């Protein structure tokens, strides 16, 4: 069955400030949606609203996943349904061992229990793919990670948790060439089973990924949707498009 996230006329504010004004977007498995736009246009707000960050208040509209009302669910319940939202600036979890964090997340999302040695095998495979050393297992989550390591660690979790819909918030910034390749091959491999909403500032990622739809956001609204020609337009003239 085809599944996906349906966002209908979503309005969001934080305190008194209106950040999203009636945004509609539909991301189905097997599709790749690109979301571009200047800083402060509301891209991350959209990601946070899908995630369920309660600091963002939804004032109107809906977010559904296969017909289920996501707005009624807590963030971890959304994750268990198959939503994954990557963080632009993943926070450090002092003292929390990376491997046990990943294992807890894996077990929680899949409602299963797995032995540490079995789990290590699964993680080992993905570590190689994203280009992180096995020694990362012994470290604490994001603690002392370089910018690139943090992004790769987000990518690792994407691979591990196999969501139905993934929202990748600027996961491509700060990635080296190899990591960039790992990212695009991950997206392409997961695509049949996953829908992607990729928030990005650059066209680098689009060299290897074919978007279903490119959306441009400005002042809390999606002002244009289209194909690759939109990206070229932006590359030339910035966001001065209407």
């Amino acid at each position: 069955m085809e599944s996906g996230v349906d966002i209908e006329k979503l309005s969001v504010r934080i305190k008194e400030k209106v950040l999203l004004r009636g945004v509609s977007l539909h991301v189905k498995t097997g599709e790749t949606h690109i979301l571009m736009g200047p800083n402060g246009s509301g891209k991350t707000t959209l990601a946070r609203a899908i995630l369920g960050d309660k600091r963002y208040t939804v004032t109107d509209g809906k977010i559904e996943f296969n017909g289920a009302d996501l707005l009624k669910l807590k963030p971890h319940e959304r994750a268990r349904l198959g939503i994954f939202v990557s963080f632009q600036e993943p926070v450090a979890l002092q003292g929390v061992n990376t491997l046990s964090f990943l294992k807890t997340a894996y077990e929680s999302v899949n409602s299963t229990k797995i032995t540490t040695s079995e789990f290590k095998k699964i993680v080992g495979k993905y570590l190689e793919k994203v280009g992180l050393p096995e020694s990362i297992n012994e470290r604490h989550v994001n603690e002392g990670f370089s910018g690139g390591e943090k992004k790769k660690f987000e990518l690792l979790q994407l691979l591990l948790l196999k969501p139905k819909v993934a929202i990748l918030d600027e996961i491509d910034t700060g990635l080296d060439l190899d990591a960039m390749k790992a990212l695009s091959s991950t997206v392409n491999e997961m695509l049949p089973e996953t829908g992607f909403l990729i928030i990005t500032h650059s066209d680098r990622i689009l060299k290897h990924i074919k978007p279903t739809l490119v959306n441009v956001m400005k002042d809390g609204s999606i002002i244009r949707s289209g194909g690759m020609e939109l990206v070229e337009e932006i590359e030339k003239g910035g966001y001065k498009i209407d």
Partner: protein
Amino acid sequence: MEKLEIQADRYDFKEDIDYKVRFPNGLSERVIKNLSDIKGEPNWMKEFRLNAYKFFSRRPMPNWIDGLDKLNLNDISYFALASDKKSTSWEDVPKKIKDTYDKLGIPEAEKRALGGVEAMFDSTVVYNNVREELKKEGIIFCDTDSAVKDYPELVKKYFGKVVSPNDNKFAALNSALWSGGSFIYVPKGVKVKLPLQAYFRINAANMGQFERTLIIADEGADVTYVEGCSATTYSKESLHAAVVEIIAMKGAHVKYITIQNWSSDVYNLVTKRAFAYENAYVEWIDANIGAKLTAKYPSVYMLEPGAKANILSIAFADKGQHQDAGAKAIHLAPATSSVIRSKSICLNGGRTTYRGLVKIPRGSKDSNTSVTCDALIFDDDSRTDTYPYMEISEESADVSHEASVGKIGEDQRLYMESRGIPENEGINMVVLGFVGEFIKELPMEFALEFNRLIKINMENAVG
């Protein structure tokens, strides 16, 4: 809104006891004379008490600990006798008192994993027993009142020598009013494999508990001592002012573990100090989970070359609690070495303070010290402070110091939730990860107990 709590209240229950003796509230020289008379002590101990009371009266309240000004020493009862006999079998302990220790799981633990147990209820020790094989090796483990009568030579030689009755106001108060506590002597070369445990319980309201512990590990001896503490919650305050003295002779090893879980109306003002002689090794593992206010800085005085100290301080401060805890390492000989680690967590407006002192005076050559203080804060209402005093005047000293403050704010919780981990599970993971190295150093039985104690409970209120 979520409310995060430390699960400490499972020890909050009360037994209605008909006390044989219960002093009215208030403190005077007469109280001390009465106490000494009830105990039928030798004169030298009575003199020691009265002398200490003079020191206490002369000293002002320490003004460097926030919140002490609210403690009214005239609202405290200084002695309560729940049972006039001390038993060596749980069957002989009066039922209501035994019920308390059953609920705390002490007799169970004794069978499984302990070399000896002492149970103190309000002012006196009600149960004390040591395994036969330990007695045969000459190990003494009894309450300190009995030691005054049965081992006067050892007590006279060491009592009050590590912590002088004039050391500080609350050490003076304890020296004047002490009752109960443990006396341990481990003979030369004897290694005690199973830990010895004491459990201190405050059951009465407005109670003052003043246990006094003296541990002597003779040359090459090895012993682990564990103390647990809990109390019934009342709306009125109680006071726990203990003094613990340790003597680790040449080559001895003493490990002293505290899991302090007083109710949140107890002022916990404790002086703990060890003398470590040549190549001796003293470890303090000090976890403070309960109490309204704790002021406690376990110390090791390294008096001869090769002495070592390892002090691990853990503090949890929830709403209305202030844990002012830390450590002191005093290097008074060459080639001495100390490690101090502090881990503190504050939430819901709780407050933690690390206060520590390391001294390496000139002449204590080739000594080293390492101090690490990590604090974890859950919210903006909570507070943590660090006062790591260092007095290093020996040039060859190797000194390292690190401090960190981590925050488990909304972002950390959300990050874990976004990966499918429920909020309370995530917080548990963070807390247990943070104090993991402490748990590794506990004997198995206590590690399990500790994990249970700090399992964080989350309530969802309608908001």
